[in-house]
């Protein structure tokens, strides 16, 4: 997987992304980052929101698995009770791994949420959260 894609976004209210992270192994290397791809990823993720809202009604679980795809890019989604959406753009990770990843990120997210100074519409800027998400990604996706 030379050019694996792994982008994680938390979308809050009114479709505002409150957290974005490129979790692919190449993300650490800024020179390797493909800017065009970043545009495309955002577009695909944003477009997938429609699909997420459609799929919401088909299941009672928070994890929606793959909701949308564009060419070879898949979008998996997880929706919290407050209708905050976790989206993961990937190129065919196992659904189990994605599910576990979402579940663990959700735990971390809840901790952020419990911060009395955090408003759910604000961007998540906590470096600890960022670090934990990246660790989880490494654990589950071996990036």
């Amino acid at each position, binding site marked *: 997987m030379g050019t694996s894609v792994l982008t994680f976004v938390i979308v809050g209210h009114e479709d505002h992304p409150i957290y974005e992270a490129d979790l692919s192994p190449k993300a650490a290397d800024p020179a390797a980052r493909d800017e065009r791809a970043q545009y495309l990823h955002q577009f695909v993720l*944003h477009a997938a929101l429609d699909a997420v809202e459609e799929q919401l009604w088909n299941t009672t679980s928070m994890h929606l698995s793959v909701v949308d795809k564009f060419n070879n890019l898949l979008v998996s989604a997880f929706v919290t009770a407050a209708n905050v959406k976790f989206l993961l753009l990937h190129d065919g990770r196992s659904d189990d791994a994605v599910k576990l990843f979402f579940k663990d990120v959700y735990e971390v997210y809840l901790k952020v949420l419990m911060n009395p100074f955090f408003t759910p519409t604000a961007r998540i800027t906590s470096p600890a959260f960022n670090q934990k998400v990246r660790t989880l990604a490494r654990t589950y996706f071996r990036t």
Partner: protein
Amino acid sequence: MDFRNYITQEFTPVVMVVSSPQAEAACQQHNGLTVVDLLRPYGFFHHLSVPVRTVGDTAYRIKEFRLRFFASADMFQPSQEAADEYLKGVVSASATEHKAHEAQDVLQALKKDEVADSTPWFNGYRKEFVRTLAFGEHETFDHPIACLLVLHAQAEDPVADFGDLFKSAPLPPLMKAGLMEHKILKHYLLLHDDSLKLDGSYLKAEEKLRSVRASLGASSCHLARINSGSGDPACTLGYEGLWKAHIRGSIPGGGAGEPAERPPVPAAGLGARLTSADVDSISKFLEDFTVRALLPHLEGRVRGLNHQVTATRRGLRNQIKTLLWRKSSADSPAAPDYHTALSTLRLLSSDYKIDKAWRNYAGVQEMLGLTLFMTGGSMSEAEYSRQHGQFGEANYALMKAHFQEENLRAALLLEQAALYLLHISPPGIRKFAFHMVLAGLRFNACDQKQLGLSAYRQVLGVYAGRQWSFIEEHLHDVLGKQSREAGDLEAAVQHFMAMLPCAHSPEHWQAHYLRQFLEAVQQAQAAKGELAALELPLPSLNLDRMTIFFDDQVVHANAEALKYPEEHWRKLEAPFLPGSDASLSSWLDGASRNNLAALQCNTAVAGETLGVDLELANPLAVELQLAHLRLVYEHESGASGGSNAYVQVLEEALSLKAGARARVRLKLRPLRPGLLTLKGVEWLLNGHALGRRMFTVRKRTHRRSNSRLPKQRAANHILTFSVLPAMPRLDVALDDLPSRLLEGEMHRAPLLLRNTGAMPLQSIRMLISHPDVHCNPDNSDLGADAMACLAGERSRPASSSASESLEEPGLILKAGQQLYAWSPGMVLAPGQQLSWPLWLHPRTPGSLTFHCTWYYEPSGVVEGMKHRLLRLTQTIDVQAALRVTPSISICQDDLHRCLLRLDVENGQATSPIALRQLSCSGSWRVSSLSMEGPHGSADARQEDEAGGGTSLDPQVVVAPLTRLSLFFHLHPPSSATGDISAGASWIPLANQVVQYFKTQGRLTRQGVLMTRRSTGDLLASPPPAPLGWGADLMLAWELREQQAGAAARPARLGINHLYNCKMQEAVPVRMMVHGESVVRHGFANDGMCLVRLVLCLRNCLDQPASVCVEAGAGPGSSTLDSTGSWCAAPGSSALPAHASLPAIPLGTPGVPAGMLATLGSTGQPDSGAGPLALPATPDYVWCGRTRANIPQLEAGQTSQVELQVAVFGAGTYELTGVGVSWTYPDLDNLHATKLGPPFLVTVEEAA
């Protein structure tokens, strides 16, 4: 368009038209129409009723029928390239026509429910695209079922010519390939051209018709008459629209049913020479043709084919025929036939599949689909889905379709797919947006800029403001570039501007975007002249943190003063402004105040500066240059923009480094009275782009709310100022005020008051809030240094010309506030200044915050303002310097003096403090005694004559962070005190400043004590007042900072006041024993030596007492609690140290009082033992008069009692056992007993 209609309209039988050149010419020359054009409008029959019976037994009636006409020469498929080229043209023409670039935002369209099913250019494209696909190899929709041969009526031999015409006619591809039978229905038409004006020609034509009919069949030959009109534009039929509707665009190279070039349009328009009679003859001919020839022919054909199919069932041979049959059967618009067709087609498809004739198979499948649709079956074709509301599937089909297509088609399909998404409920706006962006990309790739622009514009609203940074960046980038190419520079500027806040991008992109934006701005400026100011996002302004500074009735001298709330100042200023106390206001005042508030503006004074503090930040990694940063305003007179006669605008310029933040105060000076509103800020970014940001009026901007209306003043009105005419204005400068002072330091800071206004002012009053700050009543000693001010006599002339004095010097108000008033007659002209010394004397470490406020009035009458106020707040750090702890004890060798011990600790870490002077208040005096401590060698010169104090000379220096003790004698006030005159550096207690601080300190101290007492903290030990003795001490010191090169700095002078210093133990009656300390006596002669002692007693209280002295007896009890001991001194040379003596109790319980002598136990000293081992020897006896009564000892009086003691050997004796008891009858019989002081006496053997 309804798809069912579409099918019935488009998939109709085709008639091939072969016309002779003469006939064409006759038609084209005058009308601009080809023969085909002429026929087409009349190919639709809707009032038919033709009975048809095909497969089944029942007949049905055909009510409507359509025919399509094509010239045989044009019946071929155009080349791919030509077709694509043509289609491009179609799309761009359609886009221009429908103003694609003005597409509105999709969200608004969605709100208004104005979303179209499909875009006009897509419809146009589809129509033309289908046409270019006609006459393909595998399909027969467009294969002719009949051939119409057209000859000019002038032809010599019509029959032969008709034959030639058919033979020479170019055939459609399928016929050429031999797949189609050549034998199709033929029909013959003679065209009579009236414009030739030949007499009787029509008759001749009719004759020819007859001959033709005779040879070719009566029903298949017709004559039509055209060009009977004059060609005059005035009498045309007005059918131009009719003709035009059926003319389709020509493809270069021809084909697809249209000629490569169209005949020129005559001046009078299309069909210029046609009359209604001509048109009627054509229409009549076509109807005849259809009803009489075509339909019966088709009916027979279908029936025959069906028979063939059912008979032979399958086999390749059927192929051609069935194709033909399929054609006709599909064309039959009646429902029963669709079913027939369907079954047959299914049969066929399996045939083709087996035969591996894929192309044909596909064709059949397609046909199947169509047929199925017409019969109402299900089908997943996109169009069909759309028709049935399944937009989602339609989208899916189109998305799938677009991948392999070339750009334009893909773009159109994508766009269409996107549109369908909007029709899903709920609308899939975000997916729509994505598809539109993809479509836009494809459009751009195939050079359809308009459509690309339109696609992007529509979706901008979906993404805008959602913080999907990359998406927005991409959209604006593309839109900006396209707008620039399209010449819409302003739009380009707007889009490039939207890209500027791109902190997430790498630095080189940021720089690139900025450059791109500035270039666009320059281009736009070059094209259109000056641009209007833009709402630039750079730098980012935080308008919430905007602060407005202005001076109305109240002027704040420094920023710190602004931090205190209005109420605080109102309270302070209450003495100036009687009756303005806020607490006294009632609802009755409300009306007038509301009126004031209704003016909705602040007050400012002409000529004085208004300031707005703004916070600017540069979010980028690129440096920004801001120039001409200034406020935007609007004056009542209409003036705005830069500086003019009404307003002077002060511009700022600064450069913001990457990521930097700056706080800038923008200033503006109104010059004339009127109403002034601050509107926003303007700046020039990097020298090119003019940015502007308006203040939002709703937002709360902090300001110190003015005076009495803090609440009524609605925050949103504060940007408006009512500018008053010029006023006086007092400015204050506190020069030489250090940021830190030492605890107890006496610092003088010159206070400089200056009138910077435009009018003279008068009636200055000042209020100082803190007791540690004081103002001199006059300003005469400003010139001298601080020391000189404090010390020395007031030797200066009382009425020096330079000095002014306060009318009301230092009226002390509650809580240490001081009010000063200058003479009302004193006028401070503009520019004039007044300096005054201000004394600071901080007394507690920490910080000293004090407020000063000034009141003044303009000397003339100014409407709107009777007085003004100036406020100043200063905070000074106070560092601990000298800690002094006094302790006073009685002096053992004097009945009057006391011993004062000062423990002095230097709290400074680096600088030594030199003690200069110790003064004592009242008539007590201090004299130096000796000193112990690390600098014990310092010699203290006693200056008793200096009255209340002593100066330490050379000064005692306390090293940093050390402590030492000083000892002094305190002399009671009995001795007369002279006036104080101890040189220049002597600080008299009577100095006004010193006196003030001393009093204030005492007040503060008492205040503290009182509060403590009230809280019950310190209930423990309030000493009884009569016993207390309190002296107030003042210790003056100076500190010279030891810094290299800073020698010029004057010493810092400080004073510590010690209040109410008391003796540690208060003794009502002081006593002292006098006597000879060495007595010589010849014990050889006389075994007993009498030593005489005098006990002096002094009543220290202010009440008379009765005193009783008893020697050798316990004072009132049988136990002596003091020790009496003696020490034999064999060598009688030195007195052993007291501490080494063992304590031996004297006397035993039960010894009766009144015994003459107290005898100790007798014992012999151990041989060879030291002095410690010596046994106590009670070898002295009080004798003589051992009890004395002084019934009345007056207050302060001294009395003496003589005592005798008998000693029986040489040695040193400590004589104790004198008990003194006293009673104060007037003080509630205060009674106490105390042992008198021990007295040492040495008795020597006389030689």
